């Protein structure tokens, strides 16, 4: 904890600094040069780094510089309001944008009391504040944000920032400039134990996410088919845990040492289908470790046979002269290795003459894969009667062992739902041919954390082996969107497909033999390998739960109320869905994207879309993480600022669609074509979420394996939620919402939405807090429309005046054509991108349009009054091409409570995607989900790519 707190503080400082600086532009400027200088030095300092990396660096650096230069101006301008304005008007094509925005804003300010301002801030912030916003506004935002941030738990802030930093900018390594170092990000050296027993020291930022380290390790290994692998660490109770790629490392390991092991996570049932020999080789190493540690039990003969293949692979043909009996004493084949076994190994080794290393590996795998415990991840548990059993999660399903005997087996198709609650783990079984009802089987895990762990592993295995693509939030239900717990990487099907694209000569790699020698010289005995393997074997320790949160052992507290009881299904579902959403929001990070930069944005509210854009550009860097390069926080911040300059030209308005459902509840659906903007927002949210999520303490969760697309994950809200709530509550209802009198019949009014095309993008959206107004339930007809103003950039957006009663298109503005520099990535998965190729940053011309549709408002009456905000929460979920952020607020007004739901949906993709259809679908789903609510407003922002030139 202490450490964390420290880092947080640091982080915070940065943003504040920036904010404060406006007054003193000069400082900023001065700072910049220094920062800029930094990136380069790192490269030099690290001669050791692989040349490859260097090259990459070089490539990227020119671009970066450019960006920086451009951004510098912006950064400064940002701090100098007047300046900024000027600049914008001059250089920016986005002039238009800014104008409309300003107009809009005034009303808000007027309407909204000071209190309200805050929520807005957040919104804006989240949206990724548009570049176009006038300096003034920005400034205001900053301040506001500051406040907000402060209010919020520190953690969330930290997270945001962290994320930003992470992958995005490996380059800014701190080591270069010692001076800065002290100030900035702390770098940490991770020790990664490789499968061959060697140690790979890897320096990362303290706030780096798991995937950053993972990618570095894969790069070090020259491994492309990396989806089968993962990094693990030992928790304080010595349990082996998988490092979540999407979360910060530090948050996961807590106070444990920064030691990791590179391991196979998903054992391919048929290793012969792996594309590269190097992948098979690594799998062999893992299996050898598994066998030596006893995790993969096998008979004497099998030990001997597999050992002999291992020898053949490493040493080649048996050489009677060179290979005396003791030549294998270095090798460990089995937990208890006898002389007899060694003799047998040698005997068999002689028979493998002529096999190449790759062939020997293949033979090894052909035999190993048949072992009954191959790829089975065991977890200690008790059955309903308290009998000790083991749960084995594997590619085919869930196996139940009592001692060494398999006493039951549940193939994935047989399992309808997987859930956990506290320390219990449940599976709901599909009724058999002769059975009428589903049955639920419960297991008792040693503690909550263990239960969650099993659940998570199940979800991951199911997704990886059974689905074509990671699950996406069920389209039909808004509130049951995915949870973060879902596996976010590629599935086996996807990784196989990706592997077919691998087009490189088989990479050269050294097999263990050589390394073994060096290792022994180093005094690192082979034992290491087996050591690291033990982890699975021991039972889960009881105390794990406490550690989980690190902060509070009392996680389990309040949530009993959320029982999964079937009887209460509906209620539960609702609750669950909300909590899920929330959770997903918090935890979810579907696509590993280059978000560090984006996050950074969050950190500094003032940053604009442009920053984001640039961030994307830098994203490339992420994809190819360069070892040893991570920018310190401060540095990064600086960079951002610089980038701002550049931004001006590129960014266009961000389209948003707001869908508002009336009745007591209002749903706002916003669509933002612009991923970049959205990203910023999202990240913010994510950050906050993560703070919540840090808690892996969710008490329960559900997952439905059967539905390919529908995975339900229920989780009980955790304490964190509580934390969150207060902060959100603080902000008074937003003015905007109030302003809008809109009333509509519940349910009906779904405005037509036209969506324009956007570009490819990743996207994300930001939930807005603003939406809370309280409309008394008494007036069902009344609908409050929440609007999001946050996007500074949106030219037209704003105009969709809050008070409009016109059902039809309120406003349609065509933003200017803007040149935007952005990275176009068609691929959803960063990982994939990384593996296969790195894309360059194309320049894209975009056109942005904003259209707002509002339902007729039946009653405009005094809704304007803000009620008392009861609760507010924001949930984000993403799928391949859409990101949905749901913001739910409850407001108490005149004794009645009003629930307002605002959704922002970002649809991203190339022209392949039918945006109109996607939008229509989203609206439809929203209606279905909340039949008792009506849609009051839809705002569509569309950003279209004008030219493809940029694409390579």
């Amino acid at each position: 904890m202490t450490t964390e707190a420290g880092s947080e503080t640091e982080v915070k400082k940065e943003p504040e600094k920036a904010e404060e600086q406006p007054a003193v532009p000069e400082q900023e400027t001065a700072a910049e040069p220094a920062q800029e200088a930094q990136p380069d030095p790192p490269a030099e300092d690290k001669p050791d780094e692989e040349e490859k990396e260097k090259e990459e660096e070089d490539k990227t650096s020119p671009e970066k510089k450019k960006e920086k230069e451009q951004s510098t101006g912006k950064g400064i301008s940002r701090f100098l309001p007047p300046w900024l304005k000027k600049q914008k008007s001059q250089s920016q094509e986005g002039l238009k944008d800014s104008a409309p925005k300003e107009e809009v804003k005034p009303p808000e300010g007027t309407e909204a009391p000071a209190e309200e301002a805050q929520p807005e801030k957040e919104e804006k912030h989240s949206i990724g504040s548009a570049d176009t916003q006038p300096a003034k506004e920005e400034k205001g935002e900053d301040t506001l944000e500051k406040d907000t941030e402060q209010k919020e738990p520190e953690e969330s802030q930290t997270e945001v920032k962290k994320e930003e930093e992470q992958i995005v900018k490996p380059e800014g390594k701190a080591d270069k400039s010692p001076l800065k170092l002290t100030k900035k990000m702390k770098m940490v050296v991770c020790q990664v134990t490789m499968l061959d027993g060697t140690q790979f020291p890897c320096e990362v930022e303290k706030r780096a996410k798991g995937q950053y380290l993972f990618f570095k390790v894969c790069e070090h290994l020259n491994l492309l088919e990396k989806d089968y692998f993962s990094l693990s660490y030992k928790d304080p109770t010595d349990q082996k845990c998988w490092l979540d790629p999407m979360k910060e490392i530090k948050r996961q390991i807590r106070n444990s040492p920064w030691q990791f092991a590179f391991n196979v996570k998903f054992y391919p049932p048929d290793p012969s289908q792996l594309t590269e020999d190097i992948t098979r080789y690594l799998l062999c190493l893992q299996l050898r470790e598994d066998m030596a540690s006893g995790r993969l039990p096998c008979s004497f003969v099998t030990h001997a046979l597999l050992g002999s293949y291992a020898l053949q692979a490493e040493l080649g043909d048996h050489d009677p002269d060179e290979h005396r009996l003791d030549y294998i004493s270095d090798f460990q084949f089995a937990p208890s290795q006898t002389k007899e076994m060694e003799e047998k190994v040698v005997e068999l080794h002689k028979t493998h003459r002529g096999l190449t290393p790759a062939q020997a590996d293949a033979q090894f795998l052909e035999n190993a894969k048949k072992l009954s415990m191959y790829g089975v991840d065991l977890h200690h548990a008790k059955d309903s009667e308290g009998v000790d059993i083991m749960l084995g999660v594997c590619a085919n399903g869930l196996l139940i062992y009592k001692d060494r005997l398999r006493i039951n087996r549940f193939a994935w198709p047989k399992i309808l739902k997987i859930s956990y609650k506290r320390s219990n783990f449940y599976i709901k079984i599909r009724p058999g041919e002769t059975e009428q009802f589903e049955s639920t089987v419960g297991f008792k895990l040693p503690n909550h954390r263990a239960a969650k762990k099993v659940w998570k592993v199940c979800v991951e295995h199911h997704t990886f082996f059974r689905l074509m693509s990671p699950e996406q939030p069920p389209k039909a239900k808004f509130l049951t969107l995915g949870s973060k717990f879902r596996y976010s990487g590629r599935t086996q099907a996807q990784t196989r497909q990706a592997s077919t694209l691998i087009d490189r000569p088989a990479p050269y790699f050294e097999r263990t033999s050589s390394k073994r020698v060096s290792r022994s010289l180093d005094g690192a005995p082979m034992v290491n390998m087996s050591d690291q393997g033990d982890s699975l074997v021991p039972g889960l320790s009881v105390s794990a739960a406490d550690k989980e949160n690190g902060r509070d052992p009392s996680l389990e507290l309040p949530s009993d109320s959320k029982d999964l009881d079937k009887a209460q299904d509906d209620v539960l579902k609702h609750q669950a869905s909300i909590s899920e959403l929330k959770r997903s929001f918090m935890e979810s990070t579907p696509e590993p994207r280059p978000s560090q930069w984006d996050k950074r944005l969050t950190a500094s509210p003032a940053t604009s879309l442009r920053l984001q854009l640039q961030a994307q550009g830098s994203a490339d860097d992420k994809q190819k993480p360069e070892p040893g390069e991570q920018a310190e926080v401060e540095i990064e911040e600086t960079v951002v600022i610089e980038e701002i300059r550049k931004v001006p030209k590129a960014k266009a308005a961000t389209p948003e669609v707001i869908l508002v459902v009336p009745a007591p509840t209002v749903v706002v659906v916003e669509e933002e074509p612009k991923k970049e903007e959205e990203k910023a927002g999202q990240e913010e949210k994510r950050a906050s979420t993560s703070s919540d999520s840090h808690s892996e303490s969710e008490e329960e969760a559900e997952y439905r394996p059967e539905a390919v697309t529908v995975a339900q994950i229920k989780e009980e809200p955790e304490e964190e939620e509580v934390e969150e709530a207060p902060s959100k509550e603080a902000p008074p209802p937003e003015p905007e919402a109030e302003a809008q009198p809109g009333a509509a019949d519940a349910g009906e009014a779904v405005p037509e939405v036209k969506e324009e095309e956007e570009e490819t993008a990743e996207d994300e959206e930001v939930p807005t807090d603003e939406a809370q107004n309280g409309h008394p339930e008494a007036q069902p007809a009344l609908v409050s429309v929440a609007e999001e103003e946050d996007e500074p950039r949106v030219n037209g957006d704003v105009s969709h005046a809050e008070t409009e009663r016109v059902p039809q298109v309120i406003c349609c503005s065509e933003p200017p054509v803007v040149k935007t520099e952005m990275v176009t990535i068609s691929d959803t998965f960063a990982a994939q991108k990384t593996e296969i190729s790195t894309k360059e940053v194309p320049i894209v011309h975009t056109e942005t349009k904003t259209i707002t549709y509002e339902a007729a408002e039946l009653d405009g009456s005094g809704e304007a009054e803000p009620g008392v905000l009861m609760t507010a929460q924001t949930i984000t979920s993403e799928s391949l091409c859409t990101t949905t952020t749901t913001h739910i607020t409850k407001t108490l007004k005149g004794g009645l409570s009003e629930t307002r739901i605002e959704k922002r949906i970002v649809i991203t993709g190339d022209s392949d995607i039918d945006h109109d259809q996607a939008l229509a679908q989203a609206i439809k789903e929203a209606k279905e989900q909340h039949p008792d609510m009506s849609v009051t407003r839809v705002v569509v922002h569309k950003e279209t790519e004008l030219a493809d030139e940029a694409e390579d």
Partner: protein
Amino acid sequence: MADLMTGFGNFTHAVVRAIPQSFAKEALRTNCSEVDQVKAQREYEHYVGVLKHKLGLQVLELPADESLPDCVFVEDAAVVCGDTALITRPGAASRRKETEAMKKVLTELNLNIVVMEDEMATLDGGDVLFTGREFFVGLSKRTNQRGAEILADAFKDYAVSTVPRALKIMQQMSDHRYDKLTVPDDLAANCVYMNLPSKGHVLLHCTPEEFPESAKVFEKLKDHMLIPVSNTEKVKADGALTCMGVFINKKAEI
């Protein structure tokens, strides 16, 4: 090369044991039917003849032991898979000595011998089904959990599932897909499968005289070498076709 788990059914040796004179009178049974000692002897000889001459197996015949009336059912005394033989601890105390001779002969065959010594464990080889990919153990009066665990320890390469004797459960428990052949008579389902290099798929099954309907089912298996073997007498002592042999695949040399 020596691939694990391949060559299922590819046996080279069979261990059988002669029928003691005490068989008809004293062999354990769950019903009260009369056993025709002579006929039983004739069936046994036919059975051995098939193994030896039709299938070309090396048949190792253990001498009968009058003190062990059930000794003809060698299946219960050992479970052999690959190069490993588990000498069991039969559930019936009167049969425990049967394992001694079995252990001796299997040792001579140079198999890795694992002896079930745990006093808490019981296991009859007849309760064990090996499918080529995994084991199923039926827990019964004669086979307990502990026995199954020891079996699992002995054959670590394979999954060992404990099941009530029901095929459906076996299917559910298995990672593998099995085709199902349904025969109308339960007892007829007991058959001996081999996959001999020179003969292909071989099935020793019930005779049409015993189970006419079931025999017809077997006869549909065109790609198998079908050898009806009568077993009318030993059935009375709860002995099925598989009970009379322990089959071993002993490679010449590795």
